[in-house]
């Protein structure tokens, strides 16, 4: 069971080269197959996730959540997706059409791009970059541009406010996000995600870096635009923020991309702090799924408990609390590393 | 400030206002019926000298040939109360605005203007408040015809 997917990929490459294709072409085809798989997984995953979110919020609020379609209402999201797909695509006349149309597409593309470096099990990385963490952070921050595009292109004040908030928030929270990961990178000695996961075979980094875990968790919530940091959307204040003017499938794409981001960040968090694919008995890829889902349920739990923080509090929290804390964490980690090295560990 | 003596207040006010002020009372209120031209002065006096700092209610009644403005005043925390009335003829439906005395008169006067059509001299923003701006007529007037 452990090596199912690795074997499939290996067999596929072998078969392709057996057909007489060059190794490079076979790799390319394999890459395409992997991409298609990722997109399918992402879409299916989002369907499950939306269902899960609605179920979790329902249970927290002593409701049942979706329960009509399929077992436990599992197919409700599919029905919703079909509804959204068949809805009229309204583009308001005063919008900047090109930007308005392309924003959701960029958003989803960028979200899917995050999956390239994520190890989804032992030896299961599409491109095991040696600067994987760096890649993840930089691509992840691109999503803000899409929100800005959506907000600007909509030609709506609410949308623009939401977009501006998103930009401000991203600028503040990118820094603690990267800083909190630095501690882990220092201990692991690598930015390659598979190395980081492998380095946790003895002890998970959440034990070594608890402060970094908490700061990363908070910064990631802000980065994901999820409650209590859902400034750009903020439906009680900005109606729907950057998404106000979007309808039908374009709006659904935003939704899809947000959840795709959520999965990616949760997966990164399990890789960086929760031991990645490490775990007893079960195959590695199952472990990472379990960990990712647990992290996501915690995200949902937070969202359905807390009120939205105010914009200026959000910023001052980042600059006055998170950044100093993460900097201190880096300092302490560095000193501790040197001390332990001196002690000959 | 302690509880004021209503009789004393009324005599003092009568001295001050002369024949412009008439006095009445029922089970619940002492009524001060004042000429519209002296109303602003009376109100300022009531607020500044007698501590009626809370204008609870401000409304109007259409009596066909005349409009009556009714003000219910209370004082916090002494809990004195007095009611002031003033009558203006229907053809010249204008009274002094009390926004300068109590800010709470702002919207209540706008409401009276909106629904009853009495204008308030010195009101900073005399526009309709409940009905749409392009609405014609003032529905609480007795001559307003209901469509049905």
């Amino acid at each position, binding site marked *: 069971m452990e090596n199912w997917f690795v074997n499939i990929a290996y067999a596929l490459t072998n078969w392709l080269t057996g057909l007489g294709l060059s190794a490079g072409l076979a790799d390319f085809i394999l890459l395409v197959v992997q991409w298609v798989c990722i997109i399918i997984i992402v879409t299916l995953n989002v369907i499950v996730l939306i269902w899960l979110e609605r179920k979790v919020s329902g249970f927290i609020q002593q409701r*049942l959540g979706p329960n009509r379609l399929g077992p436990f209402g599992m197919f409700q999201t599919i029905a919703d997706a079909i509804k959204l797909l068949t809805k009229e695509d309204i583009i308001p006349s005063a919008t900047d059409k090109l930007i308005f149309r392309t924003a959701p597409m960029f958003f989803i593309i960028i979200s899917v791009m995050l999956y390239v470096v994520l190890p989804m099990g032992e030896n299961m990385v599409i491109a095991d970059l040696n600067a994987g963490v760096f890649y993840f952070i930089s691509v992840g921050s691109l999503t803000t541009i899409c929100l800005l595009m959506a907000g600007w292109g909509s030609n709506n004040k609410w949308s623009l406010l939401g977009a501006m908030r998103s930009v401000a928030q991203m600028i503040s929270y990118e820094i603690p996000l990267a800083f909190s990961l630095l501690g882990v990178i220092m201990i692991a000695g690598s930015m390659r995600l598979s190395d980081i996961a492998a380095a946790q075979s003895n002890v998970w980094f959440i034990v070594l870096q608890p402060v970094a875990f908490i700061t990363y968790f908070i910064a990631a919530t802000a980065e994901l635009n999820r409650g209590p940091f859902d400034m750009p959307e903020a439906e009680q204040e900005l109606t729907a923020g950057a998404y106000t003017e979007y309808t039908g499938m374009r709006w659904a794409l935003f939704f899809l991309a947000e959840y795709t981001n959520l999965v990616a960040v949760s997966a990164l968090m399990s890789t960086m702090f929760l031991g990645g694919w490490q775990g007893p008995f079960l195959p590695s890829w199952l472990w990472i799924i379990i960990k990712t889902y647990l992290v996501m349920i915690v995200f949902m739990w937070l969202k359905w*408990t807390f009120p939205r923080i105010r914009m200026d509090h959000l910023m001052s929290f980042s600059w006055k609390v998170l950044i100093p804390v993460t900097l201190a964490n880096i300092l302490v980690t560095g000193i501790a590393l040197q001390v332990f090295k001196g002690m000959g560990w | 400030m302690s509880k004021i003596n209503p009789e004393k207040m009324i005599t003092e006010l009568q001295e001050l206002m002369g024949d412009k002020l008439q006095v009445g009372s029922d089970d619940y209120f002492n009524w001060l019926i004042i000429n519209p031209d002296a109303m602003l002065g009376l109100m300022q006096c009531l607020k500044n000298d007698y501590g009626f700092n809370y204008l609870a209610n401000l409304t109007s009644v259409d009596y066909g040939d005349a409009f009556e403005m009714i003000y219910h005043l209370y004082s916090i925390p002494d809990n004195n109360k007095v009611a002031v009335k003033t009558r203006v003829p229907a053809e010249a439906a204008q009274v002094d605005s009390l926004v300068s005395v109590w800010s709470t008169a702002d919207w209540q006067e706008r409401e009276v203007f909106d629904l009853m059509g009495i204008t308030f001299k010195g009101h900073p923003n005399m526009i309709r408040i409940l009905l749409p701006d392009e609405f014609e007529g003032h529905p609480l007037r007795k001559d307003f015809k209901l469509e049905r």
Partner: protein
Amino acid sequence: MKGKGLLEGLWITLRHLFEREITIQYPEQMPYLQERFRGCLQFDYKKCIVCGLCTKACPNNVLSYESEPDPNSKKKLLISYTIDLQYCMFCNLCVEACPTGTLYFNHNFELSEYQRDDIKIVYEIPRSAQAVISEPVDSPIEMVDSDSEPAPQPDEEEAKKQKQINAMITALQKNPVKAVSKLVESEDQARILADILQADEKKLIRMATMMIEDREKAGKVALAFVNKELKDRQQEGGAGNEPE
């Protein structure tokens, strides 16, 4: 400590995550309605004395009726009664005004209709049906004094009978539970009988004829119908329904 409130909130929501749900699955599971719940306004024309108090009490002109003077007494006869439910505020003023309990609220709250006209509830009471249906048994006020009518001639009688039967059929179609309530003992039985008659038009016509011609026989037949239906239902229930 800062953050304690946040954790407390998280603890509360976590506790509720595993608690029992409080929602009612509405279409399958009907909500529990209190006895006084005001659903749809109903009119029991057997009890109406055409006093007009309800229409005077109504703030919104929901209620209206047509009547004609009874030639035999000083009272009035009701021809039709209209409840225009779309303007109803369910304020209970008419029910309180009614001296005989003619108006009452039932527990039906599913009052939406596709057409505006369907919201209106119209009770039309044909003259001849009044004579038959409103045989006063439990209502304190007599509406029609049938004894005082002169004895009709034979063919006239035949025509009148046919007319009565027709009226009965309409009554059975319009408000079956009321119409058959005299035949059977309990309201449940009346409801079952009403269902049977609504389902089968032949039975309905037969029953209407019987009710005009031979009251006793009609009662017996009705009881037989009800018993058979109950038996059927029991068998069905035993075989098909799983225990909850």
